[in-house]
């Protein structure tokens, strides 16, 4: 019961990106097309899940004074694994993501979940929490990328959706539009969940 709530909560009601405003840093720049957004979402889910798992296993052995540096080492190691994997098997996507793969290290979601959840919970719960938060992040990324790719180039995953009649709106491909789209997503989300609104 509790486990399933832990899993569904970060997907909508307590989404890390649009409610807690975490991890926006590396999120928006990879949303020009769906493919890199998808890969980025999965990478963050992987890193988040395993850093939660490992830190939860280590939580009793690490003194709290040096925990930040231990966390950074664990996270950085996982990110290096992801980076090398992408370079080996998905070179094109890894070129598109460029420095943003490295920036998963500084993604506040990963660090935030380790601090807020993994240090006080059992490994399996932490793992589930990491997966759920990663997926909540991936969901927003894919949503933003969907609108940007659809209207910015008339395609989805590189397949043409709109025919010749559609003139691509190049503005959608520029960085500012990602911010405006995410602002609108927050607007819709908070209109539905009224308790999140600020007074």
């Amino acid at each position: 019961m509790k486990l399933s709530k832990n899993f569904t909560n970060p997907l909508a009601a307590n989404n890390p990106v649009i409610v807690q405003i975490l991890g926006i840093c590396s999120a928006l720049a990879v949303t020009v097309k769906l493919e890199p957004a998808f890969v980025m979402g999965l990478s963050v889910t992987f890193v988040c899940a395993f850093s939660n798992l490992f830190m939860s296993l280590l939580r009793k052995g690490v003194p709290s004074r040096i925990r930040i540096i231990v966390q950074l080492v664990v996270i950085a190691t996982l990110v290096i694994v992801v980076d090398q994997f992408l370079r080996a098997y998905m070179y094109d996507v890894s070129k598109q993501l460029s420095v943003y793969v490295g920036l998963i290290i500084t993604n506040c979601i990963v660090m935030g979940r380790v601090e807020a959840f993994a240090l006080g919970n059992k490994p399996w719960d932490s793992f589930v929490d990491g997966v759920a938060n990663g997926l909540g992040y991936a969901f927003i990324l894919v949503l933003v990328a969907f609108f940007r790719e659809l209207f910015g180039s008339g395609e989805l995953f590189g397949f043409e959706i709109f025919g010749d009649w559609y003139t691509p709106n190049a503005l959608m491909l520029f960085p500012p539009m990602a911010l405006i789209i995410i602002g609108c997503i927050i607007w819709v989300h908070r209109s539905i969940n009224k308790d999140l609104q600020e007074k």
Partner: protein
Amino acid sequence: MLNLFINSVFIENMVFAYFFGMCSYIAVSKSVKTALGLGAAVTFVQVMTVPLNYLLNEYVLAPNALAEGVDLSFLSFILFIAVIAAFVQLVEMIVEKFAPALYNQLGIFLPLIAVNCAIMGGSLFMQQMVGTEINSVGDSIVYGLGSGIGWWLAIVMMAAIREKIEYSHVPAAMKGPGIAFIITGLMGMAFMIFSGIQL
């Protein structure tokens, strides 16, 4: 060098062009005073860590730098973040000692400079630009300064706008982060006019 400076402050602004450091940018931009303090801290850390990481990259990480035939570039994430984390710890201690008021105001965001993507992103971009725009320690200092000031400028402008917007009728669901994203998007569009500048 001037070109590099102008470029990193305005054209490739950390916030508007790359979304770096968005988490603290959204969360700490409620008052101009705090924003000024955090901006100064980020700029300082940036000016110090980018050259340090440049030296590290030049003499340890780059192919054939440490010894003939040794390429340690896959370790760059972990070494860069270690330098940054150590340095932020230092700044935190200095601020706590000499400016306790600022220390209380910045709260959790001071240690979070370590995971501020602007800092890590600055070092990673510096690594990519080695050999093209950045060829010496001096260049890397200029780049660190420029990108730090760019971030500073962005957060202070944002804080000033948000102080004014307190008095406006924003739709309830848009209050707080929602409107902040849209304002940033509009500011980003304004900053796009710099993109044609050639020096």
